[in-house]
């Protein structure tokens, strides 16, 4: 099966050229860096769920290397843990969270979000992908599914801890939940045990 191949520089990032005529070449597939493929795929609307864990960073890295292209619209989604909310009035004995503590927790969550999203954004920019940052709050499972529906995503990218059956039963699995409840296709990337994620984003 022969495919049309074109020079590296003829195709800029972010353009999906389609409708051209295929130019057959007689050569076998030389290792060209880029091709103007005739029926190149359409741009996708991708949501990548990120958190502080290594699994989601690996999932993002893998997706950037193998799936996501500059022409795609990428949303980086971080779900913050819900803030504890107690409506106990002061007179009634019981636990309550003072305003200062609640505020401090919120600020900490914001810090985490900022850190995670900026690290993820840097990774994207290295591959010429301009992501959109999204932050939401609540139970990770439901928030991811809701966000995917709202953003009308074509694909959800999510990392997976790779728990065995027992751990899954006890701890639950966000990726499982998303696969079952998201209407769009879900890419689940498990972190291989023998891999170490090297972060060169500062370099």
């Amino acid at each position, binding site marked *: 099966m022969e495919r049309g191949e074109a020079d590296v520089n003829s195709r800029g990032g972010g353009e999906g050229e389609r409708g051209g005529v295929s130019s057959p070449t007689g050569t076998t597939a030389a290792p060209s860096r880029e091709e103007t493929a005739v029926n190149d795929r359409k741009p996708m609307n991708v949501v990548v769920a990120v958190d502080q864990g290594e699994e989601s960073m690996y999932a993002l890295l893998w997706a950037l290397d193998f799936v996501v292209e500059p022409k795609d619209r990428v949303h980086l989604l971080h779900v913050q843990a819900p803030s504890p909310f107690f409506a106990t009035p002061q007179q009634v004995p019981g636990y309550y969270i003072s305003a200062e503590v609640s505020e401090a927790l919120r600020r900490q969550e914001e810090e985490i979000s900022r850190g995670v999203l900026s690290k993820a954004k840097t990774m994207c920019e290295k591959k010429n992908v301009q992501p959109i940052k999204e932050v939401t709050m609540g139970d990770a499972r439901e928030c991811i599914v809701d966000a995917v529906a709202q953003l009308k995503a074509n694909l959800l990218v999510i990392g997976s801890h790779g728990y065995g059956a027992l751990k899954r039963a006890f701890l639950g699995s966000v990726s499982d939940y998303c696969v079952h409840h998201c209407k769009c296709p879900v*890419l689940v990337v498990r972190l291989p045990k023998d891999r170490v994620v090297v972060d060169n984003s500062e370099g």
Partner: protein
Amino acid sequence: MVWEMDEKGASNSKRKVLVAVDHSAGSQYALNWALEKLITPRDQVILLHVRDDEPKSSFDDESGIGELSAIPYLPRFILQCWRPEFPGDGAGGFAGGPLGRNLELEQAVSSDSEIESLTPQDIDKMVAQCLDKQIRAEALTVQGDPRERIVEEAIRRDVDLLVIGSRSPMKRTLIGSVSDYCMQQSPCPVVVVKPPVQLGQV
């Protein structure tokens, strides 16, 4: 092994993609989606069809009925709720337990699987579908348990990405057990594609 980011990106990647196909409409939908949204002519596609057509006994078929019928004295009407097409007298007879095989059940299950397996013509159509998009594709048919065989082939062929459809929960399998198993055991990342609700019971 160290994973490092390099300059090469998805725009340049040549991937080996294994698409697991079967008779279900969901699987065709998954293939259509992958060809339209995911796969480019740079990639190489393997269409894997796993035939599971050994004569079914009531104990080891995929539909879950076998496991249920192994529960002794399970009333037949419960099986009928699970699979409405299951032949039953409706009067609440007992399904076969581990001491005896339920021949009616076996027939129902095996005739079902005969109707529902992919013919070589179907597979050819899928390959043609790929070639239409200038995508290199090869078809592979193997026998055995779909779960294990898909993962096995993915390992054997050193595949970069696995695409699998997911059946709607109520038909045949509990929760799309094949896609669940593949998600957990696959050596490479997996895309699980669910058919839209409009396709109905796939």
